[in-house]
């Protein structure tokens, strides 16, 4: 992923070191109540969790066109001074340039281990979420279609949803997920959860006592899967079979989301 970042951005990011974390950082995402879809919500929550873990201040801004505002076409993205950065990994890198990191005490092989698990989550959970939203007929008609089109007037809502569907399907075809049937998708999710549980080994967080971006990412995805009401709740039921992951989700929610509200 880093290899795609142009030189200019790298220079800008280096320059970013000079300034501390500003107070007016904004995180842009689609409307949570009526618009956002499961995969996007998972990614937004993951970034929020990461920023909270780093104890960084930010303000969530809901925008109907957040997806189009984002430099990569994906939500969420943050605006920090003159910088606009989208998606979890680039945001983690950007935060690192400010000297803030959750992985300071980790060894090199632990870091690469973490990256491997993060890409596992991206490849399995994210694709499974996309599959459920766009390929499962019931979910598509009852949830995805009305929500994705909610911010557009007729007939633009149909056109936008249709064009997004074709983009997502193209992506799923490329990743080899389109030809899977729903049972195979469930199996993939179950395997992924099993792998994560094995790695967790009953610890508090994946890498010891303090959370990392991997915990943030897993929290984002699992919390969204567990709490989003869908006509098809099989995926949530699969996740519920892994109590140690549920514990992790609850721990992150307790420590980083509920506490803040109390303050």
């Amino acid at each position, binding site marked *: 992923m880093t290899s795609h970042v142009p030189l*200019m*951005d790298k220079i800008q990011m280096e320059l970013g070191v000079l300034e501390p974390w500003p107070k007016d950082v904004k995180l842009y995402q689609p409307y949570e109540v009526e618009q956002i879809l499961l995969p996007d919500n998972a990614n937004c929550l993951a970034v929020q969790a990461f920023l909270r873990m780093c104890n960084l201040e930010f303000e969530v801004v809901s*925008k*109907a*066109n957040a*997806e*189009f*505002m984002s*430099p990569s076409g994906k939500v969420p993205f943050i*605006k920090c001074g003159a910088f*606009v950065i989208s998606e979890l990994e680039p945001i983690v890198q950007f935060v690192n340039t400010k000297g803030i990191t959750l992985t300071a005490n980790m060894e090199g092989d632990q870091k690469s281990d973490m990256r491997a698990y993060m890409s596992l989550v991206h490849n399995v959970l994210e694709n499974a979420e996309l599959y459920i939203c766009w390929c499962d007929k019931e979910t598509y008609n009852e949830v995805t279609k009305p929500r994705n089109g909610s911010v*557009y*007037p*007729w*007939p*633009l809502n149909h*056109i*936008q949803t249709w064009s997004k569907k074709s983009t997502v399907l193209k992506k799923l075809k490329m990743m080899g997920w389109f030809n899977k049937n729903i049972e195979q998708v469930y199996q993939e999710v179950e395997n992924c959860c099993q792998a994560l549980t094995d790695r967790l080994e009953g610890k508090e967080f994946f890498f010891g006592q303090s959370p990392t971006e991997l915990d943030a990412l897993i929290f984002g995805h699992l919390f969204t899967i567990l709490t989003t009401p869908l006509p098809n709740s099989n995926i949530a039921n699969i996740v519920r079979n892994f109590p140690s992951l549920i514990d992790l989700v609850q721990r992150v929610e307790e420590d980083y989301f509920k506490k803040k509200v109390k303050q």
Partner: protein
Amino acid sequence: MGVVHAKDSGSGLPHPNINYDDCEGVETREIKLDGVKARVDRVHVNGLARTKNDIIQDVVKDLFAANDFQDVLLKAQKVRTKLNSLGCFQYISVFVDTSKGPSATPHGIEVTFHVRELKRLVGGINTQVGENEGSLVIGLRAPNMFGRGERLQTEFSYGSKNSNNYNISFIKPLKGKHIPVFSTSVYQSTSEWPSSGYRQIDQGLIVDFAFNSTCMIKHNLQWDAAIRNLGVLSKSSSFTIRESSGATLKSALRHILSIDGRDDRIFPACGTFFQLASEVAGLGGDVGFVKNDVFLQSNYSLTDDVVLQTSFNGGILNSLGDDYKITLSDMYYLGGPLSLRGFRMRGVGPHSEGDALGSNWFWSSGLHLFTPLPFRPGKGGVGELFRMHFFANAGNTGDFEGDDSIIERVKTNIRAAYGVGLAMRLGQMARVEINYCFPYKFQESDLAQPGVQFGIGVQFL
């Protein structure tokens, strides 16, 4: 009597000034044509294949009303122009003869039109110049599809700024003395605005009804429905531009009134052009506004080839309330070689990090003095494609917010520039200008462009 080749009745044709008294050895005799009685007995139209009789009958029936010979000639010419405007024929000639045969009346005349129909499919590849962009156009046309002047046109263009556009339109001339024409088109047009940091892809449908209320006043009633996809052009675009990206749906009704009394479009020597366009958006879709634009250009010949031109352009955009969006492409921009010379493209008005944001109203006005090239090189030939011009232009732009009255704001902070340049005619439609500009009055936020400025386009201020 030979074949009368009628000429276009359009303005601007020089009248031949022949003094017949000077012609020696030729016996001349004057005949007053309007005194010669005539009655059109018959009209023939030769060469019709798929064109339906009824539209031809409709066009030629005026001829039967003629009652002297001059009238016959004038009407025959008018009919020829009308036939030509149907867009069905490649070639039309008129032949007038006395009528013969048993049914001929004493002053009887027969008029014959020889026509050649256009082929069923006409295509071409050509280049086109639009507003500061050149493009390669591939066009395909099916004229006179069903025999009543209907035509289907498709056009695909590949622009020099990487904008791919297409346009498929169907045009149907209707019957009636106001020359009504119905047309509808589906289009995609891409435009890039580096000066505003965005690019836009429009996909839409236009339904247009055009008619003339008098011979000079032309009306267009249009319904335009378009999906506009606004995207950020580069990473360095301002965040304000980023915030307005995304798709919007516009559905608008438009009325365009135009009166063109000029003798030429590119370098007019006399006459006035006036255009008033009113647009109401918000009939469906999420974009809503009322927009009124006016353009006025007047030309006066000072001497034989020195022309003074004045022009005024103005527009006002009113919102329909907070429920409706107004996007960057709906706003007014000022500055650039086609609007306010001496400033960069969209260089006047509010900017955010170097990107023009547009405003709710603008006006601009220009004064030109067009002269032929000094020492008249290529006189009567290539030289006629060129003009020197001295110009001064001024304008202003702004929003409605604030305490000052609108009149006060229109008058304050006027931007102005003057200069001298060379203008060249490019075919019958476009003009190229190279100017040396001196910005005279401008604001700190404006992007003035002193020095050489190059412009190519259709409508200049």
